[in-house]
């Protein structure tokens, strides 16, 4: 009973870091609202370090992922004849009192909630965020992993390996 309360408090603390963290990542990358890719970056910033270890197992880091996000935008613009170098993306000064997520960010949080419902004995970890992100087949999250040549199966294996260490 006491352990469950402790886990729940820990979960609330993690969510309280994750949501503003994703918002800050979005603003730094020039966007008003946090999408799923910004939640991935925020998970990599969590102190417990599980997401960071998953990335390290795949020989990548947060900076590589951030670069891959930008690169997939550049490639998409290039496909319509816009030279990415002519588009300067500035950080956004957020005007919101409370963080508001992009639909992809909201969907990630919804999936995270569903995942944690079936995984009650472990604290909420950055690796859980990656587990949800690894299931996303389209959009910026998936394109950034593809840009880094990360196979979804390798990502899922590294996540499972990390999560097992927390049992």
């Amino acid at each position, binding site marked *: 009973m006491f352990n469950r309360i402790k886990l729940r408090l820990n979960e609330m603390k993690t969510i309280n870091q994750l949501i503003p963290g994703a918002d800050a990542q979005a603003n730094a990358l*020039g*966007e*008003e609202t946090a999408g799923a890719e910004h939640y991935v970056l925020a998970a990599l910033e969590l102190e417990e370090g599980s997401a960071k270890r998953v990335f390290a197992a795949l020989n990548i880091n947060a900076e590589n992922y951030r670069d891959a996000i930008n690169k*997939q*935008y550049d*490639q*998409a*613009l290039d*496909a*319509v*004849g*816009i*030279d990415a170098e*002519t*588009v300067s*993306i*500035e950080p*956004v*000064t*957020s*005007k919101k009192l409370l963080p508001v997520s992009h639909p992809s960010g909201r969907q990630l949080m919804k999936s995270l909630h569903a995942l944690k419902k079936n995984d009650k004995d472990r604290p909420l970890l950055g690796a859980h965020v990656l587990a949800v992100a690894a299931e996303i087949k*389209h*959009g*910026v999250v998936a*394109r950034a992993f593809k840009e880094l040549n990360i196979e979804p199966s390798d990502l899922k294996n590294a996540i499972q390996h990390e999560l097992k260490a927390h049992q």
Partner: protein
Amino acid sequence: MTKPKLLPTPNDPEKALAAVVALRRTADQLERKAVRQAVSQGWSWSEIAEALGVTKQAAHKKHAASLKKTKK
């Protein structure tokens, strides 16, 4: 001069939708910068709204608060 290219065909939705997302992000950035510039050049919110093809209230709601924060 930017090289002219054909838009990705909708028959390749992965590529076409990626282009839509990137263009939307670029358009948002350009809008923010242009509105900031317009305000600094003395444009009224009515003029900005007219140029953007939205209502004055919509333009103000979207940009006024972030402009105030930038000024601080």
